[in-house]
């Protein structure tokens, strides 16, 4: 499903939507505040046959289900895993082997993500774009695949199947991303009993299975996560700009009048690793660090422009140049015609109030930066979304 799927809205509707969303504060058709998401119902662990699963639905009946399945797979021999030729290399370079023993490596091939949207082919450009975006965010930090490492010869292969149950009533990106997030949080892998590079052997007891993303100590579950960092899977938020307003979780109608739409993926990592702080000339670095301890330690993982469908909307015709508009309809005299044509020409270059005009060109870099900033700022939307996701009962 392309983001630019054909939205059939009349020019008058588009003009109205654009006008109401450009007000300060904007008036959204469903009365939400600019940063407000649609209320949703979420649950996890709905599919006992999976390693982890989640389901989210909106009040309008849009519903997504994600199931995570893991399989043990033999790691393919690669020259960048030099430790793999165990039989021959074991004797001559022992020291090297020891060094390599602790190196946990991941490979992006270990994760397979498919998105299925009813009514769209699975190789549809839009579906591919969605899954590329979701997997890009997941793999961005390179940490995720390391969790799938079992030993030097085996790894988990993770299949993430993302299903939209109902035909999409709006661009499903945030819905799919939140569902995937919850499913990954609920994912557990059997506890490893074997040691070293033996063929892996796992514990039968599902209750003992550790979570893929270890929980902080306070909560029930995993034992090994006593002091583990509270990393978590990324979330991708859809945010758009109309006029001077920044609007989150836009509905299909709202997206149809967007000037620019961005998908911003945000992750959270353990506090220690983030001190690879890039800009050395940061006087407030210390203050920031102390602040960070209470909030989420957000990381920007990916940003993509979503081609807004607004460019493909039918333009409105100003009354001045509308031949079916009452006063002009009967006009016969050429003078009036000429006047009309002139008015029509100005109408092409200038915006007439109340007439919809599909946007041309791109977006100012400053606007795009503001969108990203709005997502990431302290106590901003990403923070609150992650807080709300914390409240979901994981079972």
């Amino acid at each position, binding site marked *: 499903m392309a983001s630019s799927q054909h939205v059939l809205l009349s020019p008058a509707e588009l003009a109205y939507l654009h006008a109401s969303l450009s007000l300060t504060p904007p008036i959204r058709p469903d009365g939400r505040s600019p940063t407000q998401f649609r209320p949703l119902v979420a649950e996890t662990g709905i599919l006992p046959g999976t390693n982890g699963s989640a389901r989210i639905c909106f009040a309008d009946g849009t519903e997504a289900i994600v199931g995570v399945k893991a399989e043990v797979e033999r790691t393919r021999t690669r020259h960048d895993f030099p430790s793999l030729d165990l039989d021959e290399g074991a004797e001559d370079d022992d020291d090297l082997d020891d060094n390599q023993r602790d190196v946990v490596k991941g490979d992006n091939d270990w994760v397979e993500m498919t998105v299925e949207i009813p009514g769209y082919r699975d190789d549809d450009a839009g579906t591919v774009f969605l899954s590329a975006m979701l997997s890009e965010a997941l793999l961005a930090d390179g940490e995720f695949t390391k969790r799938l490492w079992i030993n030097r010869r085996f790894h988990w292969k993770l299949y993430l199947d993302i299903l939209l149950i109902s035909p999409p009533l709006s661009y499903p990106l945030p819905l799919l991303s939140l569902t995937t997030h919850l499913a990954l949080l609920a994912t557990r892998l059997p506890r490893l009993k074997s040691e070293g590079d033996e063929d892996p052997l796992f514990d039968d007891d599902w209750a003992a299975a550790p979570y893929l993303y270890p929980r902080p100590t306070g909560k029930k579950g995993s034992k090994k996560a006593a002091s583990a960092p509270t990393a978590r899977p990324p979330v991708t938020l859809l945010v758009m700009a109309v006029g001077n307003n920044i609007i989150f979780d836009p509905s299909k109608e709202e997206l149809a009048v967007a000037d620019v739409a961005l998908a911003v993926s945000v992750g959270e990592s353990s506090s220690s690793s983030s001190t690879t702080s890039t800009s050395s000339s940061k006087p407030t670095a210390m203050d920031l660090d102390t602040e960070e301890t209470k909030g989420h330690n957000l990381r920007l993982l990916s940003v993509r422009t979503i081609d807004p469908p607004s*460019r493909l909307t*039918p333009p409105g015709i100003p009354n001045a140049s509308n031949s079916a508009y009452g006063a002009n309809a009967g006009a016969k005299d050429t003078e009036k015609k000429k006047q009309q044509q002139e008015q029509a020409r100005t109408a092409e270059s200038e915006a007439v109030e109340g007439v919809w005009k*599909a946007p041309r060109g791109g977006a100012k*870099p400053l606007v795009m930066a503001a969108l990203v900033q709005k997502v990431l700022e302290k106590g901003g939307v990403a923070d609150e979304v992650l807080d709300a996701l914390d409240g979901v009962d994981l079972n």
Partner: protein
Amino acid sequence: MADRRRINGPVGTTIPPIYDDASEKKSEVARATRSRPANVIRKMYLKTGVTPSASGSAYLEIESSGNGGSGLKLSCSVHGPRALPRSTPFSPHIILSTHVKFAPFATKQRRGYIRDPIERDLGTHLEAALRGSIIADRWPKSGVDIIISIVEGEQDRETSKAQGIEAWDTMNALSGCITVASAALADAGIDCVDTVAGGVAALVQDAGDDAAPSIVVDPIPSEHDKVLAACCIAYLPTRQEVTNLWFKGDLPASDMDVYTQLVEKGIQASKSANRVLVDCLNETVG
């Protein structure tokens, strides 16, 4: 039952052998380092009108990194504007369809003839970048196909060991695709608000362990120790607008400055590419 009439290959996949040079076993392979200044893009060759049978076409070549690697070679043809088939519903705009395909031999790993997800993803990015630049309502009820074949992808011979570099290479490929498609569109005489060109900037960590990461434009991933983040920008210079932005990496949210700088550098790279593009178009006319 196995096919006995042919000589069959071994069952299962194998990995092509990679020969270790014994002399270099312990020492680090001498790796190319970036010789250009951080804000200069590589030289590129752009020519329009290379395919006479297409409505518009262009060819782009970016010089190779210099140590046995291959540069980027792209060929783009534009077919249209032409009438849509009868069955398609009325459209007040031109319908754009983009196809990006790596030639099977373009990269180290042979690619199939069917477009894989990366190629489709590139196509979507390209479409978004171009859609902002063309004046779509000039051509109602018509369609245009933009077909790009990547004849040679950018791959360094020495980088075989490096992992995850392909991901960064796609950004370079996309930026080339945008530039070449823009030239071909202009060649085909399709109305555009501005010439769009692609540019890439990356935040890289160089060899030294403690070296501070720096931002470079038009990065060659193999020249750097590690690419921390990169972004590809499609920019309209006269309108000063971005039609497509693709950022990927891992940046702390408190470091918005780095992100902003990265985007700025991307825009700068795009402007440089745009100068080549405009020169090339002038040349054709003149």
